[in-house]
């Protein structure tokens, strides 16, 4: 009297695979949790890094150009900045992608939004990395 009776079109009531996936019979792509895990690992990394940077920015209150440059040019500060930028780019790209996938429904607009998200995240990241490197190597 089980409700899970197997037929050709419905092998199992609990089978959540798509028809295509069932035909291929290769199981999952083994990558479904990648973004989920990345979002959390980058979050953990950013907790100390961002607290450090809030402190740094507060410390630079009213500081002139030369002081700001010498602080940013310190190797330890620069390395922490690069780690923070790297983690933030990954984190914000995944976060915005989830928001777009939830709310942007038009197929063309959805694809364009996702591409724009990737472009913005990497452009902001590369700009920050270039600036920190330039200050660091010229200090």
């Amino acid at each position: 009297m089980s409700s899970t009776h197997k037929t050709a079109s419905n092998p199992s009531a609990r089978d959540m695979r798509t028809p295509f996936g069932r035909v291929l019979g290769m199981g999952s792509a083994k990558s479904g949790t990648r973004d989920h895990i990345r979002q959390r690992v980058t979050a953990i990394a950013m907790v100390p890094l961002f607290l450090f940077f809030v402190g740094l920015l507060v410390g630079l209150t009213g500081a002139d150009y030369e002081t700001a440059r010498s602080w940013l040019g310190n190797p330890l500060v620069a390395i922490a900045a690069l780690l923070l930028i790297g983690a933030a780019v990954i984190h914000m790209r995944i976060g915005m992608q989830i928001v777009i996938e939830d709310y942007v429904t038009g197929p063309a607009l959805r694809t364009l939004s996702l591409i724009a998200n990737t472009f913005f995240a990497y452009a902001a990241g590369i700009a920050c990395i270039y600036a920190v490197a330039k200050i660091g190597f010229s200090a």
Partner: protein
Amino acid sequence: MADQRQAVARPLSPHLQIYRFTITMAMSIIHRITGMGLYAGSALLAWWLIAAATGLEAYATFQAAAGHWFGQLVLIGYTWALLHHLFGGIRYLLWDEIVATSPKSADIISWLATLAGILGTVAVWAVVFSMRGVI
């Protein structure tokens, strides 16, 4: 066809306005909003770093914008968004480890995160303003 489809009175999924307010629900929405704010704000961080890498004049332009009352407002808002998202995010990490998942505990850590975000922002800007001799 369209008329026939509309004639069927299907149950509608309830939306936001039908639910009672809970802090966890509000935090979920605010987490997304602050996240998007921080996303946009990353352009400001890039501006600051590029200005510092470019030269004295570019840095002066950034400082003038940051020192303007509207710039200060944006920076205070950015500080709050960052700290709220950070403390709210720690809450998600706790829930991932099945810590504080009961309705009561979930409410408590949500209020604590909200409070920490506000107090942190006040503390940071109290230090900033006192360093400038404003207060």
